[in-house]
């Protein structure tokens, strides 16, 4: 049993952290709020060049072939940096393409040349044949050629051009691009059944990791503020009302992180209770991210209520992540239906 990341594992995280600090400051989300895409193509490619999209991807697709938990460590950092763009859906899209023999597509995704957005079903049922029908919400699809569709029995990729009525919508998160679209027998380029590979569960763990990053970043901003903001002649952090709120954020973030690691390893090593662990991770991480960002706004007072401050960006992204691969209520229902943990 070893749940602590090694120095080698943290190396990639460090490189990603530096890249984000230089190229993708959180403030860029505000600057790009009116652009069609939340992240510029050249930055997406630069991140891909650093290996951000291929940590767990097969080496013949240009990936690093590392264990899933390495990707989870990276995604926590990307969450902390609030990196925009179709991160999870592209990583999962490359995996789907790789598993179904679309090696060139997998390589193009890992290299940052092709983006995969997420299509979340709004209505209609899972198609019977090799196609999808119904109405969908599209996440981070402006530059995407494909969309990842998750159905109860599996996951597939569908070309964006096969969708109809793609209409951009304003999203609460200025770092996420939302649209709606419909599909009428849109053909699936590839498909992997849930039994063959748990794509949805991987998506939930990666979302949980991003959420943990948000929970930690919100906590760190709040703690810094509590140390530096002086009122009544003292830093506000001396007050237990403030200090204890910071501590609750720290405990929530730590619990969410340890459960996310536990879930990632459970999934990678095919533990019998992997789904239980993943749903638990998604639940605690989603709550930690939203809860911490909410507390973060309160602790920053008037500044926390302004658009100029970063905290609302964490809050808004936390809500987006919480809904991407099913709603939190569905996840609770699924979790209760599971057998007890091992």
């Amino acid at each position, binding site marked *: *049993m070893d749940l602590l990341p090694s120095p080698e594992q943290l190396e990639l995280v460090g490189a990603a952290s530096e890249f984000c600090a230089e190229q993708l400051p959180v403030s860029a989300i505000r600057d790009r709020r009116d652009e069609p895409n939340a992240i510029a193509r050249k930055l997406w490619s630069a991140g891909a060049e650093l290996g951000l999209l291929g940590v767990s991807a097969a080496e013949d697709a240009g990936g690093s072939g590392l264990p899933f*938990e390495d990707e989870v460590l990276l995604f926590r950092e990307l969450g902390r940096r609030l990196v925009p763009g179709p991160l999870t859906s592209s990583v999962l899209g490359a995996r789907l393409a790789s598993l179904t023999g679309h090696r060139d597509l997998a390589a193009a995704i890992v290299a940052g040349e092709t983006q995969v957005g997420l299509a979340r079903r709004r209505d209609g049922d899972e198609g019977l044949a090799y196609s999808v029908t119904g109405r969908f919400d599209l996440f981070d699809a402006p530059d995407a050629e494909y969309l990842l569709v998750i159905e109860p029995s599996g996951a597939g990729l569908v070309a964006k051009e096969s969708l109809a009525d793609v209409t951009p919508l304003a999203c609460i998160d200025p770092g996420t691009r939302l649209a709606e679209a419909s599909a009428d027998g849109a053909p699936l380029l590839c498909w992997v059944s849930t039994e063959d590979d748990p794509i949805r569960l991987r998506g939930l763990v990666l979302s949980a990791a991003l959420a943990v990053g948000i929970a930690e970043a919100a906590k760190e901003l709040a*703690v810094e503020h509590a140390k530096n903001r002086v009122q009544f002649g003292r*830093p506000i952090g001396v007050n*237990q009302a403030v200090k204890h709120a910071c501590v609750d954020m720290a405990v929530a973030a730590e619990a969410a992180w*340890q459960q996310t690691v536990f879930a990632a390893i459970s999934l990678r090593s095919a533990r019998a209770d992997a789904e239980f662990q993943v749903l638990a*991770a998604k639940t605690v991480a989603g709550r930690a991210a939203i809860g911490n960002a909410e507390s973060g706004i309160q602790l920053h007072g008037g500044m926390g209520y302004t658009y100029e401050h970063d905290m609302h960006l964490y809050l808004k992204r936390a809500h987006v992540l919480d809904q991407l691969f099913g709603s939190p209520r569905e996840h609770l229902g699924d979790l209760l239906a599971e057998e007890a*943990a091992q």
Partner: protein
Amino acid sequence: MDLDFTAEQAEFRDEVRTWLAEHAPAESRPHEDPAAMREYDLAWQRTQWEGGWAGIAWPEQYGGRGLTLVQQLIWYEEYAKAGLPSIDACFVGLNHAGPTLITTAGDEQKAYHLPRILRGEDVWCQGFSEPGAGSDLASLSTRAELDGDSYVVTGQKIWTSFAMLADYQELLVRTSRGEAKHHGITWLICDMRSPGIEVRPIETIEGGAEFCEVFYDEVRVPVSNVVGEPDKGWRVAMSTLSFERGTAYTASQVRLAELVENLIAAARERTGPDGRRPAIADDELARRLATARSEVAALRAMTYAGICRNLTAAQPGPEGSMLKLYYAEIAKRVARLAMDILGADALRLTSRWDRPYGWSGHYLYSFSASIGGGTSEIQRNIIGDRVLGLPR
């Protein structure tokens, strides 16, 4: 990173499981008569020692097995799965006094006390809190004055579980008044049979029989019973509490996970608040149960990670307070949830020792989780100051 237990650890688990199945006490633990409690707990501890299961992570030279916290965790997991009662009377000896003596005590103290704790010969109790020194433990005022080769102790301790049936006490006394109030405190081993000690029971909200206050009237404690150095007992006490908050909670967490699963099973069987469907069909109860499952899972993940960290550390750091805080909040929520699932049946008085479920007893007992061992407010202060570095 991995969650795998080695082949040796898996074998250890099998051995534990087999042994527990063969040696678990047949009769349930008494919970009203303190003398019967003492007898039951010490006998069961002695059986464990004879089987080679006492002090799994303690050094071999003091009668332990010399294994790691991973094997200790495996023991707790199998113990909880077997539905066995915690050996409450031995808790302080095994989880407070023992680890403190191992890190701090002199050779003679270790050689005498540690094997006796493991063999189930002595019950230990804690003498930290006082009526005027609860969360502000360092303001304690029970006096110990040097007289020849003894300290003469006068004062009062409170919230001392099992004092009426304990052999020894980890006793914090004031031996001098220094510049700061946490200077001048000394950690003593007090023989509870010494003349001048009076123990009075305190009844708890759950009707528990083991809570006490202890009065000291010129009680003589030999100087050789000082653990660590005189006047420098505060650091010893803090290390005692770090064990309580760090590793001693492992067993409680494993039990809490079992409790949540039992509660889910009960919610499937019992009729819910609408009087027709099972309780689990109620959306609110179902969501709270699922949330409890997720939180208990996270608590376990934190515990595992903490064990990995502690494998290389001499004693647990202040992060132990995060586990203790999280545990306490969840334990209370789960117990309250049990009350809501039971509805009017919760009004029937039960004990947490009842089998299969004494839910109302658990509910009343759960309030102690965020008070004992340092309140949740104090844990938050510790985490805020020492983990987050917030200003005091």
